[in-house]
């Protein structure tokens, strides 16, 4: 009897709790900003995002608290979305509804990003996409609570495609993963190749995931194209490159990795990957600032950061600073603050979030070093060009995002 009474009392006081401490100065709901890192902790993309993304987020939170001494607390939670849209959206819903998460981030693979963006819009919380690459995130499926931060397939196709055509790689053949992401990467790159005066000799679509690429490489070889564009990702790309060397496709024809991360190069080794061109939004060895941050990351993760890890840190820091400046974790206020403030840190200089959610920043055209050129661990790239943000990303005039037309 007595116990029941106490339980009821507790329930009532908890129910009343959120309304009670609405003090004038800090309007951060319940005094805590909660960040949910939803990523691939066990599958194909767990090296390029995964635990590294969780760590980068925590580093951003630690640095923010140490430097800014905010009046609110910050908590980080993480979960494995297993690259499945339904798992991702269930988790995001649970976080938003039950756990009071204010912002969900990372989201590697397009299907999970698109699913979570919708929930975020419905629940009026923020989604910051760092892992996924499809341009759909800021076009057909764009919304006003999502930021696409690190890169997209347009920027990659644009960077690598244009550079190679200009360097004389006029005829192309595509090796394409047979699903939405592969098709869109292939199309984006074909457009760039043709627009720059190149031609497309053909393409072949391989099942996803695949192990053996020799049949497809044989086709690419007999096409006689100068460049073979790899419109696939992860282990498919790695195995394509490895087997291209085995079958003597390279160095007669050159390969263009259209979505590659430094973790892929690390696992392939320079002997196999040498001379390839690729585009990334970040390289740890660009300047003093990037080296300083990356070495801190390395000390804790034992691997150098990918662009996703760096973007994860930078975007989390940008978000937290916006919360502090807005004095609130209210979605509309924080989004407005984030879009208003330019981003200047080791990841981006004069970075800006557009109304379609695209964070525009410089991208880098990189070429993989020869083994003899590499002087120290993780010394993998020669920076061939810095592509200014305005050129790297799809211009707003071509946007298919409904927010832009208005």
């Amino acid at each position, binding site marked *: 009897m007595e116990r029941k009474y106490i339980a009821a009392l507790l329930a009532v006081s908890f129910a009343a709790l959120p309304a009670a401490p609405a003090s004038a100065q800090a309007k951060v709901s319940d005094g805590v900003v909660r960040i949910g890192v939803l990523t691939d902790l066990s599958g*194909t993309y767990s090296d*390029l995002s995964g635990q590294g993304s969780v760590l980068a987020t925590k580093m951003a939170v630690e640095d923010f608290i140490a430097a800014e001494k905010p009046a609110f607390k910050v908590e980080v939670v993480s979960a494995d979305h297993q690259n499945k849209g339904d798992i991702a959206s269930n988790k995001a819903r649970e976080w938003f509804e039950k756990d009071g998460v204010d912002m969900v981030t990372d989201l590697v693979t397009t299907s999970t990003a698109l699913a979570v963006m919708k929930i975020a819009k419905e629940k009026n919380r923020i989604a910051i996409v760092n892992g996924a690459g499809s341009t759909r995130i800021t076009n057909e499926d764009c919304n006003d609570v999502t930021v696409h931060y690190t890169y997209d397939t347009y920027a990659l196709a644009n960077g690598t495609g244009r550079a190679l055509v200009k360097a004389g790689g006029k005829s192309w053949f595509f090796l394409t993963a047979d699903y939405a992401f592969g098709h869109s990467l292939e199309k984006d790159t074909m457009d760039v190749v043709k627009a720059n005066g190149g031609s497309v000799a053909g393409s072949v*679509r391989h099942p996803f995931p695949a192990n053996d690429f*020799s049949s497809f490489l044989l086709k690419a070889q007999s096409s006689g194209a100068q460049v073979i564009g790899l419109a696939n990702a992860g282990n498919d790309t*790695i195995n394509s490159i*490895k087997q291209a060397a085995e079958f003597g496709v390279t160095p007669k024809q050159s390969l263009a990795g259209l979505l590659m991360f430094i*973790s892929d190069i690390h696992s392939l080794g320079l*002997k196999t990957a040498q001379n390839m061109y690729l585009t990334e939004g970040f390289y740890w060895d660009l300047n003093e600032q990037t080296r300083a941050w990356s070495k801190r990351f390395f000390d804790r993760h034992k691997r150098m950061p990918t662009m996703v890890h760096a973007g994860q840190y930078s975007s989390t820091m940008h978000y937290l600073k916006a919360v502090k400046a807005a004095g609130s974790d209210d979605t509309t206020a924080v989004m407005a603050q984030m879009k208003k403030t330019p981003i200047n840190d080791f990841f981006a200089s004069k970075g800006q979030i557009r109304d379609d959610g695209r964070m525009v920043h410089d991208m880098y055209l990189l070429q993989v070093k020869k083994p003899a050129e590499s002087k120290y661990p993780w010394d993998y790239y020669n920076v061939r060009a810095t592509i200014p943000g305005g050129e790297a990303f799809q211009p707003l005039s071509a946007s298919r995002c409904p927010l832009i037309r208005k």
Partner: protein
Amino acid sequence: MEIFGIPLRGLAGQLLIGLINGSFYAVLSLGLAVIFGLLNIINFAHGALYMMGAFLAWIGLTHFGINYWAALLLAPLLVGLLGIVIERTLLRWLYQLDHLYGLLLTFGLALIIEGLFRYYFGISGETYEVPEALQGGVDLGFMFLPLYRGWVVLASLVVCLATWFIIERTKIGAYLRAGTENPKLVQALGINVPLMITLTYGFGVALAGFAGVLAAPILQVNPLMGSNLIIVVFAVVVIGGMGSILGSIVTGLGLGLIEGLTRLFYPEASAVVIFVIMVIVLLVRPAGLFGREN
């Protein structure tokens, strides 16, 4: 010269590649067939043990300087030993039960083994170089054949035929087959049947380890390499007839060829063609092409 609009050169190249892939299917499905035929266990850990073979070769080379040729012997031996431990401690309790228990146990083992490797080595995997003696290739006129791929076909065929010969044509093989038909009777004749069964399981998984070492220089050595392959290999075993030694070898090679042709004419279907054939075979001959109806 052209056949169905495809130049003969291209066709020959794709058939050869089909044969190379088929020899992997053959070695892997052979191991499964041996284990199922003699132990009645559906060994779902086969893919994980294949991955382990590849990783052992890589670890051997990177940390202990053990070269490819030694790894080709040592890695299957170690995988086989692990198999013996698994059989003695876990599988032997399941022989009296339904197939499903063996399947669940080995599936669980596969998840544990893959999880451990993923934890220690990450997902992008490691690169294993082609051994020096087999680098480069020959120009066959219709295609450039890497020497290593030629070696894969040769090594697989030798191992497959030797296994078939031992089981079907020697006295040890006769004991094995008899032991599975009527263990009590064979035991009464003074043969240690449990030991025989343990060694058979060890041998079956050693074949998986062997295939793993063969695959290491071709594929990126990563924790998921086995689970990508194992479903196809099971389809091969079902088509060949569960437990049929010759069936698994012939079907493995044959399906490699069919897959190669599909990649030439309609690449999008190359991932499903084997399963389409499996469905047809199961409808027409439920025991598989080489299986015996009970």
